């Protein structure tokens, strides 16, 4: 049974962990979205060599577990003299991982924008940067918003892997409390509840954005 007393007592520590989780997710999302958008544009509109590089990157990231990627960033980079704190190692690894998936989402979004609009923009004399920023990306992002929303939700949940290198995020805080109290059910019920609240809030935000960006869509 759930021990509500323990749940309430654990809440400050869990909320501290949740804050770290949200920081990792937000920063990872920023890295993932920025790099993923650049890679997506490169793959959809860039030169052949650029497309090859993105394909290689995506194959590498998608073909290996995120856990291994986090461990690589944390343990392998110091071999080359690059030492970064656990929080940043986890955030970077999660961001780089997310970028690979987001790049493919953005690429498919760009493919959904009609080539004719790009040609019309070129004839009007718009620069490549303006075409990408004002014609392609707004429509591409609108088209793939549900997929991007899924990616952000996955990212929040995947941030729990940061605990493997000792980052005191939500799952890690839960594990620490469990090891003290030996009540795994109550503690992880609380952990799961907090994840659910965050991911549900995120889903609602994405749904709101979708409605906002697609005024014609049926609710």
């Amino acid at each position: 049974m759930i021990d509500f007393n323990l749940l309430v007592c654990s809440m400050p520590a869990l909320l501290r962990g949740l804050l770290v989780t949200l920081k990792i997710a937000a920063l990872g999302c920023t890295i993932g979205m920025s790099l993923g958008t650049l890679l997506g544009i490169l793959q959809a509109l860039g030169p052949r060599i650029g497309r090859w590089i993105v394909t290689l990157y995506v194959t590498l990231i998608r073909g290996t577990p995120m856990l291994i990627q986090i461990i690589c960033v944390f343990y392998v980079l110091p071999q080359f003299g690059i030492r970064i704190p656990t929080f940043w190692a986890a955030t970077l690894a999660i961001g780089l991982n997310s970028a690979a998936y987001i790049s493919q989402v953005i690429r498919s979004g760009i493919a959904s924008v009609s080539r004719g609009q790009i040609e019309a923009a070129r004839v009007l004399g718009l620069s490549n940067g303006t075409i990408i920023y004002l014609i392609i990306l707004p429509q591409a992002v609108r088209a793939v918003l549900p997929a991007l929303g899924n990616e952000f939700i996955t990212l929040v949940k995947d941030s729990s892997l940061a605990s493997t290198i000792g980052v005191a995020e939500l799952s890690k805080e839960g594990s620490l409390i469990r090891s003290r109290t030996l009540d795994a059910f109550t503690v992880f019920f609380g952990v799961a509840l907090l994840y659910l609240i965050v991911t549900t809030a995120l889903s609602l935000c994405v749904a709101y954005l979708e409605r906002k960006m697609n005024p014609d869509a049926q609710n």
Partner: protein
Amino acid sequence: MLKIDNICKKFGSKIVLNQVSLSVKKGEIAVLLGSSGVGKSTLLRVLSDLDHADSGVIYYNNKKLDPATMHKQHLVGMVFQQFNLFEHLNVEKNITLALEKVVGKNAQEASAIAHQLLAQYGLADKAQARINQLSGGQKQRLAIARSLALKPEILCLDEPTSALDPLLTMHVGNTITQLAREGYIVLVATHDTALLDTLDCTIYLMEQGAIIQTTRNADFKAHPDQYPLIAKFVWGTIA
């Protein structure tokens, strides 16, 4: 005066433009007539620098056109068969975007130009409408207004009536005639003989990437027997 001289273009081994030459004076309409796939649209795309010719030269007022700077000069405007309007922007923004980003007009100036063009093309009350709220004819007029905003000197219209009913086809014909009267050099790629009927133009009949017969529309109407290939295309039989 626009002069297209010996333009050739291949896609792989397929010749799509074969030594195409023509000249059009200011205020004149040139109609590239022919079935689908004969190279009409490709010629307009070469002219607007969306495709590059393998050989041949384009002159405007006796100066060779430089593809590298063509778009910056806003010499050529293009109205596409599918209109290619920016679906995520409203009607007004479709016109003001290039005015602000390319010509450097401020938002107020761009908006004033847009409203003037929209009024001219009967879209004054649609300025804030979304593209998917427009009819085919309204999209067509918006596409023309958008391309005229930058004041090009040459206007290319690719199959401008392919999505329109006969009444709207007549309206488009009138619009094209008006554009020529205003001094634009107008090139129209079409297979629509109903549109041809409304225009005082020079016909360039194309087949397999080459111009195979040419005449003034008025001459063709007066002496169709002298232009058997055009007559065959227009009526399906040799006059």
